[in-house]
């Protein structure tokens, strides 16, 4: 992780009310009437770090972002930047760069005026505005597009203009609301890499909201997973994937079936159709050494499919076969109403074939109920 480069002075000369450094939310809560949209959420984003707020719709991720930006004021808790409390600083005094979900580009201004708007608000001279706006456009790969009307831009171009507009004010933090969700799949994959590269280059805390965990995996350094306004877990993508702290996290992150298990400490026993297997497990920090009810996550890449009938294997029937480029993913219906996805390099098995499934070495994530 790179630190914030020095010399990121604000060009407006306004006094520095909001400070610099990590952006932190400390126990923020936001209620709308009876409904608690965000419930006691805390996390910190360091300079140059990319944190993704992930959750289903209605999980409170956008409200959280809007509190970070200043469009919403928390009912309790604080927002700080570099240790300074900015909870009640209005958005126009925060100096954050925000990219809205539908970009919110001003339809009555050409591209250049859109990008230069934040500088205009800071009373930067016209010449300097122009120079900086053009440089910002160049940095997102849109040289020479300055005089084009907004309506003539494609979705991807609009997204880049919105990004340039947020970057040109040399923001103290970058906030992005679903930055990739309005792009078509091909463009989206390309933009993931571009976005990560650009955000890392800026070197300020960057917070972005997404409902798509693949976007989050591809772009973020760390992920904060929200559900119904509560923060479930914060960690690197690997941590969330390999050591989810709860069944809910395991269900949301990555594919895999969550099956009941008997907790034996460093291993756990999973019994399906009378066939019991001991699996190596990773335990989330802070859970009791022996859980009464425990579950194990069976990821598709941790299982093996075989067409021969092994004695110690779980028996099942293929209900669905899907080619996923390089591997074939089979859905296999096992006994006890459990079905699992299995990745296999061989595509020889077909729907309605009877197969056996055995676990690989693991370790498998163990989660409490």
């Amino acid at each position, binding site marked *: 992780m790179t630190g914030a480069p020095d010399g990121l002075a604000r060009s407006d000369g306004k006094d520095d009310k909001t400070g610099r450094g990590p952006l932190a939310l400390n126990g923020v809560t936001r209620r709308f009437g009876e409904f608690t949209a965000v419930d006691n959420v805390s996390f910190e984003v360091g300079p140059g770090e990319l944190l993704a707020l992930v959750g289903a719709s209605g999980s409170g991720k956008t409200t959280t972002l809007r509190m970070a930006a200043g*469009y919403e004021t928390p009912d309790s808790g604080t927002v700080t930047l570099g240790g300074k409390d900015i909870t009640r600083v209005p*958005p126009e005094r925060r100096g954050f760069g*925000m990219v809205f979900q539908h970009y*919110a580009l001003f*339809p*009555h201004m050409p591209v250049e005026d859109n990008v230069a708007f934040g500088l205009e608000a800071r009373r930067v001279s016209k010449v300097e505005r122009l120079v900086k706006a053009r440089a910002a456009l160049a940095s997102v790969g849109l040289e020479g597009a300055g005089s084009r009307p907004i309506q003539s831009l494609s979705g991807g171009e609009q997204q880049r203009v919105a990004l340039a*507009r947020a970057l040109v004010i040399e923001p103290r933090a970058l906030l992005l609301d679903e930055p990739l969700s309005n792009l078509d799949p091909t463009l989206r994959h390309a933009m993931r890499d571009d976005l990560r590269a650009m955000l890392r280059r800026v070197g300020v805390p960057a917070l972005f909201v997404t409902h798509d965990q693949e976007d989050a995996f591809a772009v973020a350094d760390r992920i904060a997973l929200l559900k119904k306004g509560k923060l479930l877990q914060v960690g690197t993508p690997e941590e969330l994937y390999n050591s989810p702290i709860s069944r809910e996290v395991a269900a949301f992150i990555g594919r895999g079936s969550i099956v009941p298990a008997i907790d034996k400490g460093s291993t756990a026993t999973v019994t399906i159709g009378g066939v019991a297997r001991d699996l190596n497990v990773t335990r989330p920090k802070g859970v009791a050494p022996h859980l009464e009810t425990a579950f194990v996550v069976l990821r598709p890449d941790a299982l093996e499919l075989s067409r021969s009938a092994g004695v110690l294997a779980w028996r099942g029937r293929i209900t669905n076969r899907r080619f996923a480029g390089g591997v074939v993913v089979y859905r296999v219906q096992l006994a006890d109403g459990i079905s699992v996805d299995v990745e296999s390099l061989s595509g020889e098995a077909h729907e309605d074939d009877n197969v056996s499934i055995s676990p690989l070495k693991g370790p498998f994530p163990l989660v409490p109920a």
Partner: protein
Amino acid sequence: MKASARRQSWLIALPVMALLLWTVVYPNVAVIAGSFEDGLGHWREFAASPADREALWTSLVISVASVFASLAIGVPLAFLLGRFEFPGRRLLRAVATLPAALPPLVGVIAFLFLYGESGLVTRVVQRALGMAEAPWRLKGVGAIVFVHAYTMYVYVFLFVSAGLERFDATLDEAASGLGANTWQRLRRVTLPLLMPAVAGSALLVFMNALGSFSAPYVFGGGLRVLSTQILASKTNGAMGLAYVETTVLALSAVAGLVLFRWLDRKRRYTLASKGGRSRRTIRSRRIQILTTVASAVIVVALVLPHLMVILVSFARDGAWTTQVLPPEYTFENYRRLFTESELWKPITNSVSMALIATAANLVVCFIAGYLIVLRKFGGRGLLELLVALPWAIPATAIALGLAATFNRNDLLTGRVLLVGTFWILPLAYFIRDIPLVASAVESSLRQMDASLEDAARGLGASWMMTMRRVVLPAARPGLVAGGLLAAVTAVGEFVASVVLYTHSNRPISMEILAQLRALAFGTAASYSVLLIFLVLLMTLAARSFEERLA
């Protein structure tokens, strides 16, 4: 197949186009031709007449001043009601459009009762200050603009409110996130995006003020404006000069239209309709009290004309002279309206003429709207122009055109004698309301999926069945709304009526004016109340009709 569809389009279009060319275009051409019947003589006469030059100038000044006055009231009011929450907001919102419910002449006489020399407010101020004479006179440009601002700000208010409602709140948030303060956001983002709404409503006010007749006629005093000059010339028998004045008035309107289109030329965007933002509650106690007091004052100012007309309608004719309020009250005025046949006649006249005109509007505009929206054929552009044309021509000019065309029987030149008969007024009302009904029908039909018609035909429905079961139901909301507006404007119509009426087909508006001249204020006011009541009745009828069908 395609050629036959085109032939069918033309077959339906030709009668409608012929009718519009005959009743809308021909009279105006006749007026222009009439202005040249003496070569340039009438034009020279116009140019040499100080009265006419003054009238043209005054008309333009009044129109521009009315635009600015309406903007000054309508825009802040739309912002206040659209963006803020405060005690009394709902009441203010409910009465904000009330002035639009007053027929033009009724608004004028309400102002006369309130702010005229012997009006209620004038007298109260006069007594309070112990003055010997009225503190002001309701005369001249100021008075006319005052009345115009009261009745026409509603256009600005409605347009800007709708614009604010469609306004994408994230644009405002984006601007504030980029560091723009409230003033910068207003100047650079909100107002530029509202410009289409502001310009559109300003144009509407301009056109209405330019063609306005009742306020200059009643408050003008010695003041000359084009619309009243036209009537004066016609009454004096100087038809040539009246034609020139009419042509100048119509040209001013068209010039205004072109100018506004040009000012608004750069707009290439539309506002996304993603729902408005929530209104901000005013927190400061001081500002809260201030807005509440201000809105209370506005509410009273808006309701007062209506209340005053109702009050005066119960006043005994001739009894109200120097008192602040009428001294004697009676039901006599209303009793006489319903029992004396001479007084009852204008009511049946207005209602029947409005219904005839509206029925014609519905038939013609449905066909025109269908052709414009759902049929791609060569004459579409011309048809669109024809139905929009009456909107650009002030009512006085339309009326004079009819007077110039339908004044004798001469089938060779397409003239039929209608002037002096009952039918000339329904025709005038019909022409005035074509753009209104047509645009309502068009907007309804535009919401219909164009493939529905094809789908119905594909399922084997005949053309008639498709029209009856698919197109007509799709046009119905527009027909009901447009028909209601047409009937409401026609029943209170004054401007074209004053040029064309005769004693036997005199509408309510002319009778109000006659009673006013006879200083029978009570009778004039009771007609006005009846007119408001008729408007209300029609609105309720249209609403229940729509609900029953929906």
